[in-house]
């Protein structure tokens, strides 16, 4: 599929389009690598969330919940609920990948996540030639994948050797607070965040760490009670996601 000089040009164009996204995802990957090194699971297992789950928020939730000793099924369900948006992304890209070879669909789907969706969609809207748009998607998506895994690796390597008094285990809660605070400006998200945090604290002693799952459910329910914003009718799924590899 990648053969000519023109293909190399499109690969590079995709990589260039991805570059701004890397500013957001590299620090996130470093934080996930740190948390994998600090958590009470093998560091390699934490690192594997990168190539296997390949979605930042689900990776954070998986590592944190395993570290807390949550029941396996609860962790898997929580990670999959967080990743339910991938169904939407799959549906968004399906029309462009109709009729492509199986190996391409298996590979392109594997690389599908918020930034690659954005760069890919941009290419399909911009380029009339489907083949060129595929190559452009691949260029951006592979650069994203490599950068993500590299960032997690660096975070995990650095995180293993640092002293305990640094309390690096507190980096993740702070990171999550940092992610939540700007979202408080949106009424639906504010309800979701406050309800989830409250239920999580009330259910701290719930068995199997079901409290986190309960809290997520309560947050979604509370958020749905808010009036949908006018822009929620938009067809573009990415307008509502944040900047990084969520």
């Amino acid at each position, binding site marked *: 599929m990648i053969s000519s000089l023109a293909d190399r040009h499109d690969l590079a164009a995709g990589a260039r389009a991805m570059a701004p996204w890397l500013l957001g995802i590299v620090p996130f990957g470093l934080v996930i690598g740190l948390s994998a090194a600090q958590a009470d699971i*093998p560091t390699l*297992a934490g690192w*594997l*969330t990168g190539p*296997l*789950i*390949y979605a930042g*928020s689900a990776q954070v*939730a*998986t590592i*944190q*919940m*395993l570290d807390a000793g949550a029941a396996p099924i609860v*962790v*898997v369900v929580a*990670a*999959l*609920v*967080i*990743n*339910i*948006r*991938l*169904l939407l992304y*799959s*549906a968004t890209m*399906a*029309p462009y990948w*109709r009729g492509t070879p199986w190996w391409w*669909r298996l590979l392109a789907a594997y690389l*599908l996540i918020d930034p690659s969706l954005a760069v890919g969609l941009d290419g399909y809207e911009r380029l009339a030639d489907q083949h060129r748009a595929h190559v452009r998607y691949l260029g951006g998506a592979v650069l994203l994948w490599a950068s993500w895994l590299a960032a997690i690796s660096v975070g995990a390597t650095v995180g293993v050797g640092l002293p305990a008094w*640094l*309390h690096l285990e*507190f*980096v993740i809660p*702070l990171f*999550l*607070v*940092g992610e*939540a*605070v*700007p*979202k408080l400006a949106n009424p*639906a*998200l504010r309800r*979701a*965040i406050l309800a*989830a*945090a409250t239920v*999580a*604290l009330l259910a701290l002693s719930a068995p199997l760490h079901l*409290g*986190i799952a309960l*809290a*997520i459910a*309560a*947050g979604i329910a509370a*958020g*749905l009670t808010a009036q949908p914003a006018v822009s929620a009718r938009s067809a573009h799924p990415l307008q509502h*996601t944040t900047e990084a590899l969520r």
Partner: protein
Amino acid sequence: MNAWIVILAAGLGSYLFRLSAIVLIDRIAMPAYLQRASRLVAPAAFAALAATGVAAACTGLGITQAAAPLAAVAAAVIAVLRTGSSYAAILIGMPTLWITTSLLSH
């Protein structure tokens, strides 16, 4: 052992989500309420994990010692509101934690 299986299962499930519509080809019309709900999941999960993470950092500490993580969170919230950057939470929160922890232990 469990951790490996959990990560493998979550990874496999996520991959099947990614493949779903691409393999089924026809565009799955996702109900509007599900689209709204899917945007709430990550913020709700982050808030729940943040709350339990902060609580875990405070448990086992005395009343005065527990003030350190709480001060760090307060400083982080102010930093994010001031700068608009999520990573300010870590850049300001961690030093606040170190300073308040060392002050409170003397």
